[in-house]
C-alpha cells in the first residue's frame, strides 16, 4: 500500500488515488498539424523505465487534485 502525498491533503493511502500515467506529456498545440505517426506517439507511446518515473496521480477520493509524483518503479520509493 503506497503512501502518496497529495499536495493539498497530505499523505494518503494509494487506494484514495487514481493513476494518470506518465507526466509531462502535453496535449499537442495543434493536433491537426501532426503526422499520423506523431499523433500515435502522443496517444499510445509512453516510457516504461526501470527506475525513476515521473507520473501523474489524482486524489479522486479526496480533493480531486491532479499532481505529479516521482516514483521508483522498482523500489516504489517516492521522491518528496
Amino acid at each position, binding site marked *: *500500500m*503506497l*503512501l502518496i502525498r497529495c499536495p*493539498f*491533503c497530505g499523505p*494518503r*493511502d494509494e*487506494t*484514495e488515488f*487514481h493513476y*494518470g500515467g506518465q507526466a509531462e506529456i*502535453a*496535449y*499537442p498545440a*495543434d*493536433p*491537426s498539424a*501532426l503526422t*499520423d505517426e506523431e*499523433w*500515435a506517439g*502522443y*496517444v*499510445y507511446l509512453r516510457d516504461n523505465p526501470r527506475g525513476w518515473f515521473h507520473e*501523474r496521480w*489524482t486524489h*479522486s*477520493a*479526496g*480533493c*480531486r*487534485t*491532479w499532481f505529479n509524483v516521482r516514483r521508483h518503479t522498482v*523500489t*516504489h520509493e*517516492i521522491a518528496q
Partner: protein
Amino acid sequence: MTQRLPIGGRVDRTRTLRFTFDGVAMTGYQGDTLASALLANEVRIVGRSVDLGRPRGVFGIGSEEPNALVRVGDDPMLTATTVELYDGLAASGLAGKGRLDPGFADDARYDKAYLHCDVLVVGGGPAGLAAALAASESGARVILLDEQPELGGSLLGARERLDGRPAMDWVAAAEARLSGVQVFTRTTAVGYYDHNYVVAVERRTDHLADRPAHISRQRLWHFRAGRVILATGAHERSIAFPGNDRPGVMLASAARAYVNRYAVRPGTRAVVFTCADSAFAAGDDLRAAGVEIATIVDARRGETVTRTVAGPDGALAGVEIGGRIVECDLLAVCGGWNPTVHLFSQSQGRLRYDQNIHAFVPHLSAQAEQSVGACRGTYGTAACIEEGYAAGGSAGNFRIPVSDARHEQPPAALWTSGAQEEAFVDLQRDVTVADVARSIGAGMRSVEHVKRYTTAGTGADQGKTSGPGTVGVMSALLGADPGAVGTTTYRPPYVPISIALLAGRERGILSDPIRVTSMHASHVARGAVFEDVGQWKRPWYFPLDGESMDDAVLRECAAARTAVAAMDASTLGKIDIRGADVGVFLDRIYTNMYSTLAVGACRYGVMCTADGMVFDDGVTTRLAEERYLMTTTTGNAAAVLDWLEEWHQTEWPELDVSFVSVTDHWATVAVVGPRSRELVTSLGVPGDMPFMTYREVGLGGVAARVYRISFSGELAWELNVPWAYGRTLWETVLERGAVPYGTETMHVLRAEKGFPIVGQETDGTVTPQDLGMSWAVSKRKPDYVGKRSHARPDAMRADRKRLIGLFSAERLAEGAQLVTAAGMVGHVTSSYHSAALDRPFALALSRDAHGPMEAVWDTRRVPVEIVSSVFYDPENLVRDGSPSTWPVSHEGDWLLDRPVSALDAYRDRFAVAGADAVVRAREIPLAIMRETHGADPGEDAMRLGPEWWIGPAGDVDVSGQRTIVELTGPRARDVLITGCALDLDPRVFGVGAYVQTMLGRAQVILRRVDDDAYHVYVRSSFAGYLAEWLLDALAEWSHT
C-alpha cells in the same frame, strides 16, 4: 498417564480444561497449547504426512510447526502448537492437509482496523521489549506486537536468570514501564509492504471457550509506521538424516520450552543431537525436569545421528550413532538457528549469508526499518536487549541486565547426516535430501527451481524450519557456498490466514457498497426485481402478480408507447459546471458544439478519449449563461468527473470552469408516453415546453428542474427534485397513472430507436462514426478530444465494424457471433422482443452489412436480416405527443411537504445500536449544504480542495448530495478506525479537524466536532451502505 510435571511452568493448575483429540477425552491446564496438552497426555502421533502417510508428532512450539496439523471445530487446518487450549476444545489430527467443508458458512465476525505510530516493534521478546521501552521513553508513539498470549518471547521457555532473578521478572518490570505503548498480544505480523505498511492478525476470541458473537473473532490490523523495529527472533533448524521426521524427534529449543513453559516432558529418555551450543542448555533443562539424557551427540566432535529407529507405532524408539542403536523416545535436534528474516525480506531488504553463524541475516534495509536481536543473528539475551535499547532511541536511560546463560560459540554448519532417502528437508511437504539431489541431477541449480520441482517450502508453514535447510542441502550437494545458492522469495502472509479475515466486514450486503436512490424503498415495496448497474441497485422490471420478466417488460413497453410510464432515472451522473469558459471547455470535451447552445436548451453529446473512441454520452443543458448541467451514464459518473478535472487541471487551467457533482442531490423521475403531458401538467409542469428544453419549475412547492428530453422516442419529461422529495414525487407520478418501468424496458425502448448504450454497444474500440453518429461530431470545431484520431487511417477503414439493425425469426443471444460467407464479421450487442413491432430485433456491430448472414451462439445458427438500426418512428413523429393532449399548465393542488431522509429507515436501528456512554449513532437531519469553487464563502465552510468549499453558504445547492451521521461517545474513534485508514489519534486529528477520505468503502467527509463526537458526511446514495456498515461496527459496543 501424564508427562505433566508437578510444579513449575506457566500453566494454571487450578484451572483444568477438558478437551478431546480424535474423540478421546483428555485434560490440560489454562495456559497450555493444544500441543503441550497432547504431549502431557502422551499423544506422540498427531497426524500423518501429506504424501507418504508417515506418522508425525509435535516438532516445534510455535508458528514454525510443520507437523502437528489439526482440525479444531470448524477450522480445517491449524497447527497444534498455536492453538491455545480452552475448555471443550475438540480437535482431530490431519493427514497433511485439512479439508474445507464447502457447505460450511463461517458466521463469526471478522474486521479490520488502522493505526499509525512513530515506531512499530514486531516481537515482544527481550530485544523487542527493550526497543519498545526505549522508543516510548524517547516520546515516540509506539506499538508493540507479539504473537504469544503474553510478552517475553524466548524467555517464556527458558530458565535463564537476569541480574540474578528469573528472566520473566525482567519482562514483567519492562512491561510495567510500557504504559504509553499500545501492546497487542496474540497478534502476528503477516505482511510488510511498501512505505512501512505492516499488516497483522489479532486473534481476539480464538482462545475463549465461549466466544462472544458480537466481538470480531480476528482483526486484521493495518499499521503505518514511521519506523519499524523487527525483533522477530530466530527459528531453530533441523538436520536431515533418515527418519528425522518420526514422532519424538523435536527441535531442541521446543523440547526445552515444553518442560520450562508448560511443565511437560516431551519424552522420558532423550538423545540430544546438535551442532550448536544452545542444545546443551536444552539438555540441562530436560535433565532438570527428570528426562533421562542418554547422550548428547555434538557434530562438532565428529559424531552424528545417522538414522532413527521406530517402535511398533512408528514413533521414535531409538537412534543410530556410530553404528550402534541408542534407545530413546525423544531426539532433541539442533542444526543451528535461522534468524526470522521473513518480514525483513518482505520489506525488500537484502539478505547476506553469515559464515560465522551459518545463516542468512539482514544486510541492507529497503525501508525505515531496523532488525534487532536474534532476527539479525545476535546471540545471547543481554546482547539482544542492548540492541533493542539502542534501536529504540534512548539507550542511555537503561542498564543492560547480566545474564547467567553460558556464552554460546557459533554453531557448525551441518545440513545432512547419513543416507539421502527418508532424510527429510521439508517435513510438511515430505521432501527428502534424495528429492533435492534428484532435482540437482536433473540440472536445476536455482533454489527457486528446486523449490518448484520438489515443493520444498511450499507448505502452509512456508518452510520456516526447512527453507534454509533446503539451501544448505543444495549447497552441500553442489559444493557451493549457501550464500551463492541464495534463498527463495519470502512472501506474505507469514502465517496462514483465512479468506474470511481478509474479507473482514466486506461480506454479504457489505461486500461492495450498494447504492440506492431516494425512491428505493418504494421500488422494494412494489416488488421490483433489481439489476446491478455499477454499485447501484436499479429496478430491472416491476412484475405484477405471477408475471414473467418477458411479460412484465412487454407490458411496461406498451404503457410507455401507448399511455404513460415512469422510470427512476436518478442514477444518471449529474455534474454542475460553472464558469465563464464552460462553453469553450465543453466544445473541447464533447465531439459536438455546446458554446452555441441557447440558455434553457438541452443537447445530446458524445465524448471520446484521445484515441477517438467513445468514452461517454449524455444530455447536457445550458442552465444559465455560465452554467451547464452535464449528465453522464450511470456507471461512468465518477470517471467522467475525473476526466473533466484532468483536462481542466492538467491541460487548460486557464479556463474558468469548475465542477460540482450533484448526482445524489437530484432525484429524477422520467415520465414517458403519449399521455405523459396530461400527467406532468397536473403536477404543475408547463405542457408547452419544446423538445430538448429545460425549465425551473415549482413542483408541489419545491424548486424542481424539468427537462423535455427523451431516451425512448416518446413524448417524455425528466422531473428533478432534491433527494428528500424524490420518493414522494415518484409515488405521486404513479398515483396519477404512470406505469413504473425498469432498466430492461428502458433498454428495449432506446434500442427500438437505435440509441446505443455506452458499454453495451461500445467497448472502447468504437468511434461515434462507427455508431452512425457522425451527426454528433462537429466538422466546424478546430479540435475536440479525439478529433485527430478520427482522421487516422484506422478510424477511416472501410471495413470497421458499424452499428446495424437485425431482424430474425427468434430472439438472438447478446454476444452471438455474426457469420457470413466471409467468416465472422461481428457480434450482437443488444437483443430484445419488441412490443411495438411485435417481433424480436437486435442491434449489432458488424464489418459487413450484406447478407446472407447468420447469428451463431452455443449450438445455434439463426439467419438474420440486416435492417436499419432505427426500428421505431424513424421520422421522429411521436416525440412531441399529440397536439390534442396539450392542456395548458395549471398549478397542481398538491404539496411535496414530506421530506424523507436517506436514513429514514435506520432511525430505529440506530436507536438500539451501541450503548450510552460508549458509542451512539444518529442522523443529523437535512442540513443546508452548498458547494463553492473559488474564495471561502464563509460561515464555517469546510475546505475540500484548493478552491473547493462546502458549507451553509455558497454557489451550488448540494443539500441532498450528502447525508450526515453523527457518532458520539468515548468509543466513537474505536468504531471509526475499523474503516478509516487515516490517523485519527486525538493528538493528530483535533477537535474541528475534517478530512475527505474513505470510511469502509464509502467516500466521506469526516469531521471531529467535539472530543468524542464526529460527523460523517456520506453521499446520500451510499447512506444505506454506510448505515449497515456502522451498525455492524457498533455491534461490538452494543453489549457493554
